[in-house]
Structure formats: C-alpha cells, structure tokens
C-alpha cells in the first residue's frame, strides 16, 4: 500500500532529484551528463516520432512523387485523403470500429467494476484462484478460440455482426479492465465505506455511492486502455467478418493491402492509417498521465 501511494505522488516527489551540487565528479566534467542526456532525448524523440512523420509524408504524396524518398512531399496533395473518404468501405469500417469499441468499452467498465470491487474489497473464499483464472485469460492467444467461435457464430447467426465481435473482445478486455479497476479501488480509503456501512448502507450502496465516484479517474484510465485494446484488435476482426457490415478499421486496412497484391496503393492506405491514428494521438496527448497510470497499475509491487 505504501509503495503505491509513493508511486502516484511520484511526480511531486521527483523534484527532489534535481541535480545536487557537486554530483560526485569535478567541475570539468559537469557538462558530460547534460550532453549525454540531451543526445539520448533527441534520439528517443526521433525514434518515436520519425516513422509516423514518414507515414504522414507518404500520405501527402501522389503519383510519381511516391517513389521518390523525399523527406518533404514535393507537391503536397490531399488526393489520398479525399479518395479514402469517398470510399464507402473505409467510412463503413470507421463506423463499425467506433460502434464496436464504444459498446465493448461500456460493457467492460460495467462488468469489470463489479468484479473489481468484489476482488478488491469483499471477503470470500478462493479469491487467489479466481484472480489467477481471470489473469490467465490475458495470456490466451486469440487464435486458440478463432475456429470454435467461427463455427459457433455461424450456427448462431452472429458471424459478421457487431455482436459477434463485441462478445469475444469483451472477454479479452475484461481481465485488463478488472485488474486496473481493482488496483484503483484499493487506493480508496476503507474508512469512507466503513462509515457508510455503520450508517446502515449496504455493501452495494457503498460501492455505487462512494467507491465508484471516487474511482472516476480509474474508470477513465480503464476505459481508455480497453478502448485502445478493442480498436487495435485484428485477428478476430478478420476471422469473424466477411463484409463491410462488421469489418473494423484494422481489418479493412489489411483488406486493402491484401486485395491488390500487385499494385498496393500505399498512398491511400497511408492516408487511411493517418486518419485513424490522429484521434489516438490526441487522446494520448490529453490523457498521458491517466494512460501511464493504467499501464503501470499493479506492475510495481515493492
């Protein structure tokens, strides 16, 4: 418990790590560290951002410019963007992705917050075993269930539908969601719930009226990570869909590349890729702290 609190408040505490005077080596070597640090920082920034910049660059080129490896598009054009938004396959895939991701995320948060509360606060037998089972799902290779789900969905009429993707996505998203939410619920002081219980509230009321509102940042974090996960899902999306009625964006992009094997329209595909990446990058910029908190939830245990 103590370590977790330390981690969350880490940002405030880090100010202490301001370079201390003298820092072991003599004044003649004091410039070494900043130079090394800034070189590393510049390299990291180039490593992380340049490939995405290159993708944007390609998406702004058309025709013969595509084959020239210019770092700036010589004749920048939005043709590629225009053509993907005129492509019904892409806009439909976009709609499918948004719908499937939203519904899965909401369901995962509702189911996940119940389960997480039970795991974080209630006392019942076999808790360790149950947590182990839930976490073991995160290690499942989706390929292992692809064939049976494909056969089942064909029989049940769920093949190539939104529901057919939402259900398995929910299964794979839930463990992550439960794990993150449980680690947030644990940080809410127990005294608040105890006071409510003494005043005659039930455990469920305490959960709904006290824990849930206080865990709002945790819900945002878990929701974001679930949404990223579902938006990214690919194997089930190509195995369980056959047309634009449920095909999601990743599957649609792969379908573009697969269908024209001989002349891959990389300009158009790059434009589509940029379009679906911009919202994600925007979310990262806005919610950086929340996302980092979620990714590292429970990873650090003294």
């Amino acid at each position, binding site marked *: *418990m103590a370590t977790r609190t330390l*981690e969350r408040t880490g940002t405030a505490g880090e100010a202490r*790590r301001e370079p201390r005077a003298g820092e072991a080596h003599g004044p003649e070597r004091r410039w070494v560290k900043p130079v090394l*640090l800034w070189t590393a920082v510049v390299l*990291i920034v180039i490593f*992380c*951002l340049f*490939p*995405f910049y*290159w993708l944007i660059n*390609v998406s702004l080129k058309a025709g013969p410019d595509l*084959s020239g490896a210019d770092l700036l598009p010589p004749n920048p054009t939005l043709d590629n963007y225009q053509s993907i938004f005129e492509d019904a396959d892409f806009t439909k895939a976009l709609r499918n992705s948004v719908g499937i991701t939203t519904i899965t995320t909401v369901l995962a948060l*509702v189911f996940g917050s*119940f*389960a997480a*509360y*039970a795991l974080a606060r*209630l*006392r*019942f*037998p076999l808790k*360790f075993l149950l947590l182990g*089972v839930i976490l073991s*799902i995160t*290690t499942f290779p*989706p*390929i*292992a*269930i*692809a*064939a*049976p*789900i*494909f056969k089942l969905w064909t029989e049940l009429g769920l093949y190539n539908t939104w529901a057919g993707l939402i*259900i*398995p996505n*929910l*299964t794979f998203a*839930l463990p992550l969601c439960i794990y993150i939410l449980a*680690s947030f619920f644990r940080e809410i*002081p*127990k005294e608040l719930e105890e006071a409510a219980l003494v005043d005659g509230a039930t*455990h469920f009321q305490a959960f709904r009226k006290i824990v849930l509102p206080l865990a709002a940042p945790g819900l945002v974090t878990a929701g974001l990570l679930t949404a990223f996960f579902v938006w990214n899902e*690919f194997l089930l999306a*190509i*195995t369980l869909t056959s047309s634009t009625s449920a095909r999601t964006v990743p599957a649609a*992009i*792969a379908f573009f*590349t*697969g269908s024209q094997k001989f002349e891959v329209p*990389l300009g158009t595909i*790059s434009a589509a*890729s940029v379009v679906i990446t911009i919202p994600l*990058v925007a979310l990262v910029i806005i919610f*950086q702290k929340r996302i*980092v908190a979620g*990714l*590292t939830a429970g*990873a650090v245990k*003294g």
Partner: protein
Amino acid sequence: MEAATARLKSRPAERGGYGRSERRLAAAMLAPSLIVIAAVAAYPIGYAFWLSLTEYSVRVPDRWRFVGFDNYTDALSSPEFWDALTTTFIFSGISVALELVIGLGMALCMHEAFKGRALLRTVVLVPWAILTVVTAITWRTIFEPGLGLAPVLLDKLGLPGADVVWLGQEPYALGVMILADVWKTAPFMALLILAGLQVIPDELYDAAKVDGASAWQRFWRVTLPLLKPAILVALIFRTLDALRIFDLPYVLTQGANGTTTLSLIAQQELTANRLIGLGSALSILTFVIVMVVAFIYIRAVGGNIRALAEET
C-alpha cells in the same frame, strides 16, 4: 489506515456478521464477468480441442470424422510447423531483448529531472498508441522497394543494405518485423520500468554515494536489483504478446520470406486452406506453448500476484 484495517479484522462480530451476505454479493458481482469469460474463453478452448481431433471435409459442408491425434502428428511432422515455431521464438527472443535494453534506456532518461520531461513521456506514448496494423503499414512505407526511405537512405549514407529487398528476402523480412515490434512496444516496457524506478528511494543512492560507489556501480548494484520485479512483469507481458504475434507478419509480408509465426500458420490453415482439424491442432499447440512459457514466468514471480490477492 493500516491500523484501522487491523482493528476491523480483530473485531469478531464483523467477520461473522457480514460473511454470508458479503459472499453472496461477491458472487453476484463477479457473475457477469465470469460468465462472459467462461462462455467465450473456457468453452471454446474445449471445443477447439475437440475440433483438433476431427477432420472436416473441404468439399462437403458439415461432413467430418474423428481422427484422434492424427492432426497433431501431421502438425508435428511438418517442417512448416517447426519453421513457424523457430521464427516465433527468434522473433520473441530478439525483440523482447531489444525492447528491454531500449526501454530501460528510455526509462532512465524519463526519470531524470529536466525541462520537457512530461513532453518526452507523451512522445514515447505515440508508438504505443498506433495500431499494430498501422505500425506494419508504416514500416512497409519505409522499407518497400521503389518507394521506401530505407534503401535510399542507406545508399546515400554509403551503408550496406541499400541493395537488399528488405521485405522480400529471408532473414531481412524478419529483421523489419522485429524493428517494427521494437518500435511499437519498447515504450510500454519503458513506462513499466519507469514506474519501477520511481519507487526506489533516493536515500539508497545517497548511501551508495557516501560509500564511494561510482555511477556505474550504483546502476548495477542498486538500480538494477531493485528494478527486477518491474522488469520481470514487463518481460512477462511482452514475451506472451510476442509469442502470439499475428498482425505484424500478416500485414508486412503475409508470412512470406521466413516471417510465418505460430498464430499466422494456424490462421492460414483455418481460413485460407479450410483445414479446421489441422488448424485447430496448430491453435491448441500455440496455446500450450504460450501457457508453458507463462507458467515458467509466473513460477518466477508468482509472489507478485499472490501479494495482490492477499493485500486486501
């Protein structure tokens, strides 16, 4: 707070009084998640195992027969399976090792106090946020012959590799795949390690310094040993992910030129060749391999999960 919990636990009326209703509520709250997990993970795994013991006719729909473990013998005696297994392990080993080294470097940088540190953390999250499929497209636009940046750049800098058809030649295609994976996931590793760095108390460094330890010794003797739990958790997550890799080879090369992984070969047998029995056997083999690796790792750090369960 610790005192309050202890007081609560020592009150006997509490334990007996809430026991049953609490247990019932726990069951009710866990039920929705457990039902979904059981229906879509546990049951299909059993069904997949059953399918792996059968052979479905490619021509006549719904005609099948029981073949026992024939699909497994077929799979285990096919060079394709062993190639995919080797590729998967080479890919996982190299990319996770590179991710660890690069991630550690990134984490150490992000831990330093300097202006723009928050910005660096955001920048590092960009590759993490990009879809795996888009990652594959991005690296294709860099390495695609006649379009890509890499051949031109290598040529201009006079480096070897300008003549290589990167995605079209045996070891190089896997190299691009590893590079793409490292790019996308090293940031994740970095953030987990950074969280580990942040819980190391400064006093330990100060004490080591007083004892005359150099910066290098402090890193090897203080930082690394204390980072071990965080690194192990990051390694588990990444290794299990890498063993299941599917999207990258699918979009980069469609599995050509030595990039077919276990998940990809199973999926190809299932969908392209419509061999449900063999495909299921390959899927189950993939599942078992991932589980064995997971088990080995979890034996090493099982205490962490137990601590989480028992913390309440």
